[in-house]
């Protein structure tokens, strides 16, 4: 053909061991290759989700507001004992739950990414990692809308966020990395044993009560206190929240270690995905 020499693709069984860094490089290449697909599938799901709904785009705001309302009600009824704080409780809960939701929705969407796109995996040669991560576009989008929502809540309380607000999305990156890492492992394991991902997502739901999401970290409960202090999620959620509201990092060391852990999980997740992905398609 007249085209410039085209690339030659090779499909063969994996013969030698590859390093995690090689996996990451491959992931990077393949995600770049499938950027078009990721974008098209994101717009597809986005548009398809909103068509045929009365409230249309308003849903993006309605869902988080309903979430806050339930915790505010629990607090108002005195069921919750969130601890002493100098922030309005709804604002505190909103930041906490939106960061927590970033983690759970990332895990759920990436963890289900292979099965949800099994038809495309079986019928097209789009890189598997690309298809697994397509759901992430929607998660990130919702999160960013949540950030705008957050600014509106600040405005409503006439509180000005600290300058850290400018890099708030960057501060939540470790959470995203952790979620993607766990999700990738769940995605490949889930193709063999389908009940693993739902189990992990439910366990994660329990873990929320061992993390200062809807209450503060200086809890007086002697049982929960050490658990919370040892929980890396504590630092990943507490740090962005307290930085944007007060500009203080409660535990710089905790945040650093937890972030390193989060990115290590991401690296491990990508590596695990690449080691196993050849065995995946035939089990979908």
């Amino acid at each position: 053909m007249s085209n410039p020499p085209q690339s030659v693709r090779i499909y063969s069984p994996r013969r030698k061991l590859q390093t995690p860094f090689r996996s990451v490089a491959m992931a990077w290449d393949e995600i770049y290759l499938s950027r078009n697909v990721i974008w098209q599938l994101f717009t597809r799901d986005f548009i398809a989700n909103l068509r045929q709904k009365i409230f249309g785009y308003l849903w993006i705001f309605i869902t988080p507001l309903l979430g806050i309302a339930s915790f505010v009600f629990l607090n108002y009824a005195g069921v919750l004992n969130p601890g002493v704080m100098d922030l309005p409780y709804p604002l505190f809960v909103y930041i906490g739950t939106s960061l927590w939701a970033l983690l759970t929705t990332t895990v759920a969407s990436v963890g289900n990414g292979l099965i949800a796109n099994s038809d495309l995996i079986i019928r097209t040669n789009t890189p598997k990692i690309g298809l697994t991560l397509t759901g992430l576009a929607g998660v990130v989008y919702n999160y960013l809308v949540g950030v705008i929502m957050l600014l509106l809540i600040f405005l409503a309380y006439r509180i000005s966020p600290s300058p850290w607000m400018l890099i708030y999305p960057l501060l939540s990156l470790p959470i995203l990395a952790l979620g993607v890492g766990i999700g990738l492992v769940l995605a490949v394991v889930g193709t063999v044993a389908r009940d693993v991902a739902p189990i992990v997502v439910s366990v994660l739901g329990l873990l929320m009560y061992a993390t200062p999401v809807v209450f503060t970290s200086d809890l007086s409960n002697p049982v929960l206190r050490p658990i919370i202090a040892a929980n890396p999620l504590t630092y990943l959620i507490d740090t962005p929240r307290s930085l944007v509201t007060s500009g203080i990092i409660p535990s710089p060391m905790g945040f650093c270690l937890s972030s390193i852990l989060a990115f290590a999980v991401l690296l491990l997740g990508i590596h695990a995905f690449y080691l196993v992905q050849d065995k995946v398609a035939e089990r979908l």
Partner: protein
Amino acid sequence: MESGVSILADNVSKKFGLSLRQSLKYGLKDMTQAFLGRPVHNNLLRVGEFWAVRDVSFVLREGESLGIMGVNGSGKSTLLRILNGVYAPDTGDIRIRGRVAALIAAGAGFAPMLSGRENIYINGSLLGLTRREIDRLVDNIIDFSELEQFIDLPVRNYSSGMFVRLGFAIAALSRPDVLLMDEVLAVGDLNFQKKCFDHILRLKREGTAIILVSHSPGAIWSVCDRGLFIDHGEVRVDGTVEDVIRSYEDQNSRNAFSGNRLSDRDDLSEGSIQTDSFSSNYGHERGGTGEVICRSIRFLNGFQSDRCTEFDFKESMLIESELVVKAPQENLLLRFTVDAMHYRFIATLDSLEQGLELPFIPVGVYRLQVRVRSPNFRPGAYVLNMGISTKSVGVHLFYWFGAVRFVVMHPHSSFLYSDSNAVMHLDSEFTLQELSAMIPDQVS
């Protein structure tokens, strides 16, 4: 890979587990091995595994097309998925040059809520096209799919024909370097099908390498230069399209032969009745008054007199049968009839018609032989039935439906491709003469 070669498949194999439970177990095991970085032994079968594709090798150059035939479950689709990079081979490797469009992906990723036009972009991106490339192609695609008025309608309101037409148009018009097709040419009405064939042949002329998997000999014959016949994952025939179609159809006939065997008795290569006692009634397959019964029917190869169920085209056959006459008979009529796959009683062999008069047959055991010289059955699977009656009595003394099955194989000297439903071959001579070089009416 040398230039001009589009696909190089070298000893490609792929195995699968038979049961879900087993594949789950092996899946977990393999994954753990892979996690730990241990080599997985791919070239050995474990209990409960089978080779879906075994040691398949071929080379396909630019502008060539390869037809792959095989009965259901022979491994064609698995091979196509390996070629499309969906499954990694367990052994061997595949090299593919350029952009691959798979027509197994026709309509992949279509979102029912979105319009045809929006879906062109989604499906196109799944085929590896950029947005700009799709922008350039979108009008041609809409034009080719003949969906102009409906292109902004959500695709869930499309008919299945419209759906596939759109999917086909996207894949075919994307001008891939390699086109993988799985049984997709039977799309739309006749005119659209013709358009698809024309377009595929044009792609081929322009250098696209094509692999077509199909059960339709006609499609393979018109598109492909060569073929593979696959059976149980292995390439049995790698050669001309004609050879591949012959092998495929013979395999089909054999399967038709053995497929019914399951529902019947254990062995239908020879019909036999175990006991001599026979109650006089009408059964489903066998019945009659029972005054005469046929104990066994079998086919012998015309010359070597070996028991035989597969005959070459026009090979002579010998039917041999054992009869028990329990009461003396006058004017006995012995008759065989032949059923084809889709038609009953396509031929009859009657003792009286063929010149054997049986005015009186005393009690005894008899051997009946019927030699059929150069039968004109076309390749396929057939069933032999038997009936015994007399001229004076209006009921069957004995009948036996589906007594023996036999298969007629494709000839090597000629290629009988035209219609697999046809059952008889009539030797004939064709001539074509030119009467005039002009068509008179077309002048006006």
